[in-house]
């Protein structure tokens, strides 16, 4: 097993390197650069080409692409992501608070999704093709079908119109004021969590259906075990394996993928930062963000493998 895990761990490196190369090149292919985005934004007077050239030189954008890449990747290897081309501040500082927020929302949404998905999925599987199953499926598919920004807009409008209330505008870290923090983040977490619960519910249901058809469940029934015991002890643990994967991957997607929801709920998270970074052609920040999100994704994948190994003795004892 250890060899397998180490192998998987090491395979993360070429993947991340690939991500790094692609985002680096992609950014240079996109028309426009940070200097243009900043000085040609149209709100000021025309800036001379000399000024633009000087600024490009200051940011190192006049160097050959391979050299820029080498400098950047060498920094990354030392966990130095450089400074933002837009603000001039260290990347780590730019990201820190947003990352905390996104991480928290992702975690909360995952909790919401899990709490919804597991019971619903199990019930739907047990009552397959009955009205309970249909109701669960309609509920979960409705979650998938509703654009989350749409749901968000409805929620915010609902609060406004019916309760004359708006969620706090500014992110307060949990450790500073848990109540303020929760009051702000619980809504996006619910909106997103509901949507993602759909994916997990469907996976739980089908995985459960599959497991319930397994021979060992028949064995357990033949032993005269209680239904609850069969479910909890025999079925759930097996059925959980694919569900855990799905939840893990969704969690990874949530980290950087909540652009629209963040916009609707006005969360200054990674997703919004992403859009800002790329529309400003803030190369260094975009690169760092992509790498961060990709690393999180790949790492969660790896963590899922570890979890699998831990949950499934067939792998654990290999």
């Amino acid at each position, binding site marked *: 097993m250890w060899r397998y895990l180490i192998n998987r761990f090491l395979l993360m490196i070429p993947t991340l390197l690939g991500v790094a190369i692609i985002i680096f090149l992609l950014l240079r292919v996109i028309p426009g650069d940070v200097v243009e985005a900043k000085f040609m934004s149209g709100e000021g007077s025309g800036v001379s080409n000399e000024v633009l050239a000087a600024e490009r030189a200051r940011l190192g954008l006049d160097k050959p692409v391979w050299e820029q890449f080498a400098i950047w990747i060498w920094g990354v290897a030392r966990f130095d992501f450089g400074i933002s081309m837009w603000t001039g501040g260290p990347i780590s500082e730019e990201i820190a608070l947003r990352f905390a927020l996104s991480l928290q929302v992702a975690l909360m949404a995952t909790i919401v999704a899990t709490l919804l998905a597991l019971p619903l999925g199990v019930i739907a599987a047990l009552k397959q093709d009955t009205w309970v199953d249909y109701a669960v499926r309609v509920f979960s598919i409705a979650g998938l079908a509703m*654009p989350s920004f749409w749901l968000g807009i409805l929620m915010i409008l609902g609060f406004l*119109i019916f309760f004359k209330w708006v969620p706090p505008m500014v992110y307060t870290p949990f450790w500073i004021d848990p109540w303020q923090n929760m009051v702000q983040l619980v809504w996006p977490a619910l909106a997103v969590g509901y949507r993602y619960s759909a994916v997990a519910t469907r996976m739980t249901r089908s995985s459960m*259906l599959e497991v319930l058809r397994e021979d060992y469940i028949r064995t357990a029934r033949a032993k005269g075990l209680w239904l609850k015991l069969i479910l909890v002890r025999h079925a759930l643990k097996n059925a959980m394996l694919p569900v855990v994967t799905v939840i893990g991957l969704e969690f990874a*997607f949530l980290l*950087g993928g909540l652009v629209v929801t963040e916009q609707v709920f006005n969360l200054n998270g990674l997703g919004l930062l992403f859009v800002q970074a790329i529309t400003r052609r803030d190369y260094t920040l975009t690169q760092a*963000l992509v790498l961060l999100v990709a690393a999180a994704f790949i790492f969660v994948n790896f963590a899922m493998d570890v979890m699998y190994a831990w949950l499934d003795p067939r792998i654990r004892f290999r």
Partner: protein
Amino acid sequence: MSTATDIASVDTVTAADRGRRWSAVVADFCRRRPLGAIGAGVVVLMIVVALTAPGIAPYDPLNIDFAAMLAPPDAAHWLGTDAYGRDVLSRIIYGSQTALIVGFGAAFIGATAGAVLGVGSAYFGGRTDLVVQRFMDIFISFPLIILALAMVAILGNTLPNLIIAITVPMIPRCSLVIRSSALSIREMPYVDAARAAGYGHARIILRHMLPNVMAPYLIMLTSFLGQAILLEASLSFLGLGVQEPTAAWGLMLRGAAVEFAETAPWMALFPGLAISLAVFAFNLFGDSLRDALDPKLRTG
């Protein structure tokens, strides 16, 4: 030889059986999967609406009428008008064209490219597989929004480019799923038989493996259909999708629809419902299709 009698007596499948197979399959699907049948019905309805849009839409979807700006639903405009006085119903009807083109275009390209890559990767195995999978890993871990933004920024905002942008993240997801079923199909004796018969790689992949991943392919296709429509709506909402004055659902939800959500809720409500209904129908159908096609989940 005595085999002749033996054959005659076992010829159990009659011509009549085969003739009514299709209608029987459809009837059976409807009976056993009522939800899926409802979904399929809505999808068919949507296709019909999209095809006959010029005939059934009460107004020209591009026709601006400042006199009728922000008109609430009434006899003249069943679903009201938008900020430019355009008929919301007509725009929803025409919007179904955009949704279906994007949905089917992206889903078909994404699922097919994914299927070919997945099957090829599984068939060749070894180093090829390792390299292809690394590439899939790279693309799957790439944040979707960045891909979409980059594609749109590089290629521009046209419908085909939008389809490409939506397709790119679908390919690795589909290829992963298809690859895993192709891996088991590669171990099937009939693939061995094809190899033993001395067929070329292309023939084995195209004729012997691809048709047999149809079940996961169709499942991916239907789920991508819904996802593509939703993605298009999200991208449009972010201003990265198709552009005004094209009639598209996501576009209708953005800008004025949000600003006037309180005073003119019909502007956001109906396109939002259209998106939800379409995605809902595709997912419902896809889900039931999966239940029906996945032998592991089959009842009875």
